[in-house]
């Protein structure tokens, strides 16, 4: 949970980083972008 919260803090305007913890069971990952299309965080 700590990492999810940290991600949200670092990129607060990104709705993809907002997760409902109650619905995370069984979800192994959420695809944020295509391979090679990573956003640059500076």
């Amino acid at each position, binding site marked *: 949970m700590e990492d999810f919260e940290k991600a949200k803090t670092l990129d607060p305007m990104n709705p993809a980083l907002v997760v409902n913890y109650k619905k995370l069971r069984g979800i192994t990952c*959420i695809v944020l972008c295509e391979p090679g299309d990573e956003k640059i965080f500076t």
Partner: protein
Amino acid sequence: MSNYIQRGLVYQDMGNHQYAITDFKTAIEIQPDYALSHFHMGVSKLKSRLVHEAIQDFKASKRIEETPAVLDGLGCCYHARQKFEKAISYFDQAIEAKPYKVDFLKNRAQCYFDMHEYQKAIDDLDTALHHNNSDPQVLYKQGIAYFAFKKYKKCIKTMKLALQSKPFMTYEADIFYHLGLAYCRLQKFEKSIFPYTECIRKIPSDLRYIHERAKAYQMIEEHKRAVDDFDIVIKKNPKNAHAYFRRAFSLKALGVSDSRHLC
């Protein structure tokens, strides 16, 4: 005059364009109507990113003698200024005069690539490959064009050929990186691990490579390895929200609630 040109070309080859420009300038002062001095000056100015001045030099050369190389040089200048249509028109003229000059084809292909005209870029590089089918740089550029065009299987095939052709170190890591990316785009995450590992081995400081490998490890549920890679990305770029977000899933899969508990 020729001594100045010769020395200027040595400096140009070494990448010391400031000294090269001084020599070409002297050569022009001695004999202003010698086209090659202006041409070489244009090349060094372009490589020094003095694009506007380079255009004047190439045009001066063209006024004395129009050669395919000068037309290509003008194409490169307008490409650098993102005047793509004008650049293509000069490249067309250069290639019409010398259809199998690989450098001209590579330059026009790069221009088409930047215009998102991927098929035209691929076609130009194909023509270049007819001349030398194992030119690693042409194969690499074509692989990149296939990737941008979302032709991932062709990208993989071309990048593998580029690797067999002994590519320069300057772009070898990028070949492996794009191989990994192409496998991932085809959902073949397991196959991406080796190329990602190779590009990391060649350039360990490039966090893009480590992050993409972490993502691939996560997709094949090698969560411990994924976390190790995400840790490196986060340590070196603590503002990377995506890396935190993804690490959270791998930690969850490992049953670890806090990253600090892993160690």
